[in-house]
């Protein structure tokens, strides 16, 4: 098991390096992507551009730039400095991480609980009105993009521009430690919007997975033992969750992608907005830092899921 974990972590680090290399190449070969040009003002002298390139280290060969970046990252955990504000990228990320974590963790809880419970009810009452309604809603939520759903929510429920002014709208986010209640209410809509798509996927997966396990022989055995239906269903759910659980690691990536959009729509000062603005202004170090953060999240989540799976399924453990 230890060997397995070490191997997975090493592979994870390799993937991080590859992701870094890819973002390096993508952003530097894009035609409009020269940050020195963007910073030099209107009709710049070529000399000025060269100067700025020198300051930012852009005149070195790409491979050297990459090597320097990797060295700084792995030796000092230094992600460089923003081309714009000169602030340390690590500082920027640390400052904005709480907002993004509040959003994504809350949404993940909502998504798993909501998705699983709707899926379970649907599986047990298959082809009922409730089942059709929830599966139809799930399909709808699955199909609409987050930014659109976010805008619809704002137009419906935000207390500034909404039709029913019941929830704080965009730009009302405050830190948890500053005012827990305001923190909570300002995040209700973003949580729902961000969770909706994934919850819908999970509801549908759970429905089909549970419907399948409820036909298993051991469920018949459980009934033959004279267990209460509740206990029988619990046994089914226990098995049905396993295959869905393995998808959790992948779904975290979808969630982070969605967070960029949701943070933008609701104007939450998180990593997503940071990343979005950095892309707009070719602020390479910030883009690089946020991409690295997101990919580490996904890699760590997948390793954790795989290890946890061994505990969920004894048959895997013994292989």
């Amino acid at each position, binding site marked *: 098991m230890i060997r397995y974990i070490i191997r997975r972590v090493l592979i994870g680090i390799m993937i991080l390096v590859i992701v870094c290399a890819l973002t390096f190449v993508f952003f530097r070969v894009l035609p409009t992507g020269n940050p020195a040009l963007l910073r030099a003002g209107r009709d710049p002298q070529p000399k000025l551009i060269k100067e700025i390139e020198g300051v930012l280290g852009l005149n070195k060969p790409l491979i050297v730039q990459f090597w320097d970046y990797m060295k700084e990252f792995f030796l000092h955990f230094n992600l460089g400095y923003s081309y714009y504000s000169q602030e340390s990228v690590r500082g920027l990320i640390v400052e904005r991480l709480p907002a993004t974590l509040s959003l994504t963790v809350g949404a993940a809880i909502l998504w798993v609980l909501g998705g699983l419970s709707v899926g379970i009810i649907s599986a047990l009452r298959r082809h009922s009105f409730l089942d059709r309604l929830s599966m139809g809603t799930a399909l709808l939520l699955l199909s609409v993009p987050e930014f659109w759903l976010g805008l619809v929510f704002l137009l419906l429920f935000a207390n500034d521009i909404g039709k029913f002014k019941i929830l704080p709208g965009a730009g009302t986010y405050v830190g948890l430690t500053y005012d827990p209640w305001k923190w909570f209410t300002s995040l209700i809509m973003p949580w729902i919007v961000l969770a909706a798509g994934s919850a819908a996927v999970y509801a549908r997966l759970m429905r089909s997975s549970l419907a399948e396990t409820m036909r298993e022989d051991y469920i018949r055995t459980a009934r*033959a033992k*004279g267990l*209460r239906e509740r206990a029988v269903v619990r046994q089914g759910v*226990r098995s049905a969750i396993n295959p869905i659980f393995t998808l959790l690691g992948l779904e975290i990536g979808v969630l982070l992608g969605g967070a960029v959009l949701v943070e933008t729509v609701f104007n939450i000062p998180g990593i997503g907005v940071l990343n979005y603005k950095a892309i707009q202004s070719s602020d390479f170090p910030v883009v690089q830092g946020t991409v690295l953060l997101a990919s580490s999240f996904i890699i760590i989540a997948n390793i954790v899921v795989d290890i946890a799976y061994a505990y969920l399924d*004894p048959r895997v453990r013994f292989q």
Partner: protein
Amino acid sequence: MSAAAPSPRGEPLLRVEDLRVEFPGEDGIVHAVDGITYQVFPGRTLGIVGESGSGKTVSSLTALGLTRRQGARISGRILFDGQDLLSLPEDKLRAIRGNDIAMIFQDPLSSLHPLYKVGRQLIEAVRAHRDVSRAAARERAVELLDLVGIPDPARRVDEYPHEFSGGMRQRVMIAMALANEPRLLFADEPTTALDVTVQAQILMLMERLQRELGMAIVMITHDLGVVAEMADDIAVMYAGRIVETSSAARLFATPEHPYTWGLLKSIPRLDGPREQDLVPIPGTPPSLINPPSGCHFHPRCPYAQPEHSRIDPALEPVPDEDQHHVACLLDSSTRKGLWEQLQAGNTPEQALAEVAAAEGAAT
């Protein structure tokens, strides 16, 4: 076996009367069980024999209220201890399931929950019907594993089903079924998924437990060897009906139904002459949606007469044998003649010719 016939063995523990189970399907109604009647006496074993799809499993699942398919239409009566299981409300039936009546299934691996330790599954079975502490139930679980001959039960109680061999898993299933000392055990093909040597062990175990606990067993199988070993009485099912029923000894000595002959002649025997060929039953089991008209067996019966496709035979006592019933349109004397010819090693065609000649000479 008519329901009203007085029995020399006292009151039956289970009496199934004219049970019918139908499933509406896409292609029509599946008549899985088509009016069967049988009884099981305390401490005795009834073997229900038939090919797959003959309705033998459905009939027992129905008794426990476990008929899984939605929209099953069930009629008839299943009397256990005087109460009709078919009309019991779900919670009353649940109190009987796993308590007075238990069941074991064909595939012990898929019938055990793969993610729970066997101990937990045994404890659950005990606590479903008895108000005992977890610790006491656990002790009982160890005791049960010991009872069914699993070595080192105190350690194995904490293992998962996949850590057990096939035979040991079936022992666990049996232990689970015995948790509350049932009076009746349905065993649905309990040895089919096991190696032959293990099969014998499991059958011996069941016999021992039956002696010790005095329970009645309904043994559902396609394997006449298994019922020969275990059963006191035998019911042969074909296409959702019972076509022949009698004591085991009598059924093997003087079977009356051509389908039973077919079953007996298609078993390989180690002690028989090597050159004697097995005689398979021709054709395939009939559709349960559109069963053949008349006698359901007539399309596969080598002895069928033209009128057998019109007349539906009833299960009637064999002359002078009120415990032996058969549903066959052939004459009793013809049947005896045919069986003698088959016993002598003749093929069904030869047997038919011989008997026809003998009858021609007699008239």
